């Protein structure tokens, strides 16, 4: 374990990189998810089709392939983003598809009477979504969104492959130098658990906090 405690600063810098990447991509994924979910339940058939196309395409492609396509593909168009920004965009867009599906099923879970009531007092589609359905849908989707957040936290590790300097790459680099894989990788694993376990608890807390008393 000495090698771990001797290099806490390497872990710390990787840790904060992972935290920043996680939070930024999660924000992007929420935005993408809300837009795509709205498209998927919208009255406009072309919007529904486009939303479905996005979800099916993104969900069925490995994240690593998307990362490569974006990172190496865009340089061909003459656009170059930093590794971190590429990661935020791709990881956010990828998990956005999952957020969209979670939100959509949340909207489906809101009792039909709510939407009927909203429509019968004369609210339009977007008004009923905004004031009645979505606020309730958000509450029911807290657990799946929490799961997506945790999956996203773990998936940020793929940034290592395009030379991002996150926790995983910190462990891999330390291992290249010191060749003590068990303590080094265990240290990184614990650091990930430090992120994922409290966020699981936090989402559980939010879930109880916003639960609709019935």
């Amino acid at each position: 374990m000495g090698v771990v405690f001797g290099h806490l600063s390497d872990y710390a810098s990787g840790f904060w990189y992972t935290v920043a990447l996680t939070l930024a991509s999660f924000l992007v994924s929420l935005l993408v998810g809300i837009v795509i979910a709205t498209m998927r339940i919208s009255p406009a058939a072309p919007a529904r089709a486009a939303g479905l196309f996005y979800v099916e395409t993104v969900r069925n492609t490995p994240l690593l392939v998307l990362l490569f396509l974006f990172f190496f593909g865009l340089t061909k168009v003459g656009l170059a983003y930093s590794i971190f920004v590429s990661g935020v965009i791709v990881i956010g867009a990828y998990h956005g598809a999952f957020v969209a599906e979670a939100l959509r099923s949340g909207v489906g879970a809101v009792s039909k009477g709510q939407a009927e009531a909203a429509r019968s007092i004369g609210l339009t589609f977007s008004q009923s979504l905004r004031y009645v359905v979505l606020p309730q849908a958000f509450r029911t989707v807290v657990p799946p969104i929490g799961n997506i957040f945790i999956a996203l936290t773990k998936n940020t590790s793929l940034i290592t492959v395009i030379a991002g300097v996150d926790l995983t790459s910190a462990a891999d680099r330390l291992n290249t130098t010191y060749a003590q894989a068990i303590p080094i990788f265990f240290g990184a694993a614990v650091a990930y658990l430090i992120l994922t376990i409290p966020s699981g608890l936090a989402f559980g807390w939010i879930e109880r906090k916003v639960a609709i008393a019935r």
Partner: protein
Amino acid sequence: MSQQPSVLYDALGPRGQRRVVIGSVLAGVLIIGVVALGIVRLAAKGQFQTTRWEVFTQPAVVRFLANGLLATVRVALTAGLLSLVFGLALALARLSVRRAARYATGAWIEFFRGVPLLLLILFIAHGLPQYGMKLSAYWFLVLGLTIYNSAVLAEIFRAGILSLDRGQREAAYAIGLTYAQSMRLVIVPQAVRRMVPTLVSQLVTLLKDSSLGFVIPFEELLRRGRGLGEFYPQSILQAYVVVAAIYIAVNFSLGRVAVWLEGRQAHRYGGRVHLPGGPEDLAMIEVRSAALVPSD
């Protein structure tokens, strides 16, 4: 996919339809504009020259990629089968009567579900040889995928077992079966059947995750695509596009199979077997229930 009637909006009248058409055209123009801009810039760099795409019609290249896909599928299936066996074993251990077994497997499952798969694979590929464990890249990848996925599947199985009506277990005890017999003959077969759609969609996740074999390196589809790009540097972008298209085609078909199976199950059991959110989501499936122990 047919559209279910939604109470959120009425069938569109003439004005609504007009608005949809106008909006679609505007959005379409915008999207086409962005895409066209990208195409123009790609074309300016000559990315659409047929020579760049031609390589993918060469039989040797097709065979090269097909073998990559084959390796991907083989690794996913091997890891899938092994994960099924170990996942079931872990699930049963976590539901065991013995507290020590429950806690130990609980810790094992939570640890490996909570750790990024890439970290695990890097540990296996770069770390295990330091301790004298040398396997082929294929088995390194299978090992990593199995450890991770068996932990995930264990929770899926546990959810399946716990979702069975308790009357099944009580009936098994009532006719004099032991705990082990009731599990083997009554509970597990039903739980597994119920989880079939979930298991198929978990295979999609496995296929996608096998792309992480890239870092070992294992010659799966993505690695092959990268290899092509290095051999034909002018076609690197095209290689990734082709690889992505192959993944989408395979996984989309598998996803359809899962949906079809789900529909059949719904028909058979009268209720939907719910696939929450999407395959990724299953990695963290929540099982909120105490261990399954005979009540006395």
